[in-house]
């Protein structure tokens, strides 16, 4: 019944493929086309302008600000998030007094750290806006309360602090998820490996470096891809939380925000599509590099 089986498989796949082509692939393809036009978003016709929209990107100061900020986020957000995620996960597994066990109350911490993941990004941004309020926010309030009033700042309004403040929120909201991801990966590491290491006299740091890290490498790589994509976005947090938004003076501008503003405020859908296509290729390149980069090194098999 081989024949019938193929018919069944094709019958099962084709509807999904058609939907995928119609609602996923065709919008992509048409965004490419639109990026070569001057479409306003409401006009009945669009004129072909060739590569004009892409040429403009290079002279758009705000877009260049956005590229710079996204680049900074692309480096900082994954490194910090993964660093903290790995630290928390290993403390929950091996941080206890007797190695092989997590710190006391590990299960409780695991749930608490995961909380931010349950909040929508919009709520996270609004809450942190309150935290950062220069006059009665939690952060400055705490600093003043412990006698460090001199460190109190206008976090979101100072050019050299605003982007760091935004990245802190992104890290805060995503670290719980990666902690759980790495925790699960560490659960899969056989305990005997650690026992052997302890017998050999390995300390906490070398156990982590020589056993834990190599064995969760695949998860870390996936985390890099996810966080890289998240760092190239950042739209929701920036749009809600920052001054301007995107300010002060472009210091927290991100590509998504420039795209949104050009499309929906300025009525330049063609130009915005060009930004979208640029972002698409940037994301693609980064994903490829992150996934290929890890492959070159030797794999550790358990």
């Amino acid at each position, binding site marked *: 019944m081989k024949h019938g089986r193929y018919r069944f498989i094709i019958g099962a796949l084709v509807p999904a493929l058609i939907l995928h082509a119609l609602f996923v692939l065709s919008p992509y393809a048409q965004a490419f086309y*639109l990026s070569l036009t001057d479409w306003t978003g409401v006009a009945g016709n669009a004129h072909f302008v060739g590569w004009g929209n892409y040429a403009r990107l290079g002279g758009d100061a705000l877009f260049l600000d956005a590229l710079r900020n996204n680049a900074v986020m692309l480096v900082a957000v994954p490194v910090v998030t993964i660093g903290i995620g790995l630290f928390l996960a290993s403390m929950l597994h091996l941080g206890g007094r007797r190695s092989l066990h997590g710190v006391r109350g590990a299960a409780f911490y695991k749930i608490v750290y995961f909380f931010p993941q349950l909040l929508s990004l919009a709520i996270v941004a609004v809450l942190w806006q309150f935290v*950062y309020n220069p006059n009665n926010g939690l952060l400055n309030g705490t600093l003043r309360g412990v006698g460090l009033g001199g460190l109190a700042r206008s976090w979101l309004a100072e050019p050299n602090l605003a982007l760091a403040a935004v990245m802190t929120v992104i890290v805060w909201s995503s670290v719980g998820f990666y902690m759980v991801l790495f925790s699960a990966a560490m659960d899969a590491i056989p305990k005997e490996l650690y026992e052997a290491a302890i017998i050999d006299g390995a300390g906490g740091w070398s156990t982590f470096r020589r056993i834990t890290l190599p064995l969760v490498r695949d998860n870390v790589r996936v985390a890099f891809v996810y966080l890289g994509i998240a760092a190239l976005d950042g739209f929701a947090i920036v*749009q809600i939380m920052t*001054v301007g938004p995107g300010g002060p003076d472009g210091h927290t501008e991100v590509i998504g925000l420039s795209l949104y503003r050009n499309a*929906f405020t300025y009525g330049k859908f063609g130009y915005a599509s060009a930004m979208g296509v640029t972002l698409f290729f940037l994301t693609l390149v980064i994903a490829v590099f992150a996934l290929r980069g890890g492959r070159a090194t030797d794999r550790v098999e358990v």
Partner: protein
Amino acid sequence: MVHFPSSRVSSTVPASRRAVLSAAVAVAATPVLAGCVTSSGGGNESAGSGAKTADNPLGVPADAGLEVVIFKGGYGDDYAKSAEATYTQKFPKAKVDHKGIQRVGEALQPRFVADTPPDVVDNSGAGRLDLPTLVASGKLADLTELLDAPAYDSPDKKVRDTLLAGVVDDGTFGGKVATLNLTYTVWGMWYSKPLFDKHGWAYPQTWADMLTLCEEIKKAGIAPWTYQGKYPEYINDPMLTMAAKTGGTDLLKSVDNLEPNAWKNAALIGAAEAFAELAGKGYIMAGSEALSHTESQAAWCQGKAALIPCGSWLESEQKGVTPAGFDMVMGTVPSLTTSDKMKVTAIEAASSESFLVPAKAKNKQGGLEYLRILFSKASAKSFAQANSTLPAIAGATEGLSLSPALTSVRDAAEAAGTEAFSYRFRSWYAPLAKAVDDATAELVNKRINAQAWADRVQKAADAVAKDTTVTKYTR
């Protein structure tokens, strides 16, 4: 998101993850409509028009349905419904379809692309459609026919003669009247009358007096000024108003017409220097630069700062927060020099809450007639009463008992007479508005000086002037 009270009210509702996604999807999915992008087939079939009579001057087809889309923001949509009731009274066979929504642009954009728009749209609030884009794409009906029709409740006057100064201009794009604005907003400096009386402070007429007053206020332990730092356009208003008073109509024209070096005019640099001084002397409440409009206005209502720049929607926006006996009133922006071209009573004022009739509306005449009813004196009066807002229709507040705030706004509008002005570049060239906002935020945070401010803004204005993809307007 500029200069429309309702948009500021609703801007407290942040864009959600979903809005982000839908924005991304919209950008990605717009080409699905590309069939319409290149070939505009289909679209609404017009209901045509009926016979024009004295009772039906716009020739509304009596049995055609009417679809009304209203932005349901700070003003609600009851006022629109009561105008709809009047419409059905007049045309009992017409079925009125009412939609009170938010994010008007996202809801209606596909319908404008497909040429199947509703008959009347209140294009207001955050996420509304960009007007110049609609006009440039020929999507809007010319409202001249409506303006020349007799007013609904005083047939001896034309509709255009019942509107306040500047309202028709506000809706005019490239010689075509594209929208009619229902509310009249006046910008100025707000303060609590009892607070000023208690300390024996008088609201200043000149900038020098303003600085003297600020020193006194500071001595009393109150921050003299605060502003809605998260949205720097708020502090632009008094600054650009002061410049306009110095430079007069010529300045407004040269700025709005994107003339070379318009922003380097002495009047603008003078005003920028004045605000730099205000910031430099520490008269602006610390932390203001990071506060949203709700936060800064709340701080002002709590008496932490004495003065705040805002438009006349402030009273209704602060309804839940204002302590009893606060009695806020609006003062006009002081004069900077003794040789100002406009009097100190001159005000920045503009109409907003834009109503439009799409060119491809099924029942275009019905849409126009609906606006004729909505802009009648009786309808405006009930709007004013319900929302304590000045409507764009003359005499709409006659016989109403007004709050101190609305009284001060109405008095300011009356005292200004014909000297009520507004800059048009904000609605004509959104990218320039953004550049001005960013530069002014830098200025009042002491990161750039007045000269650098002018250079930056001029550069942005030149870029817009040079950009061939932007439709240009002149005044």
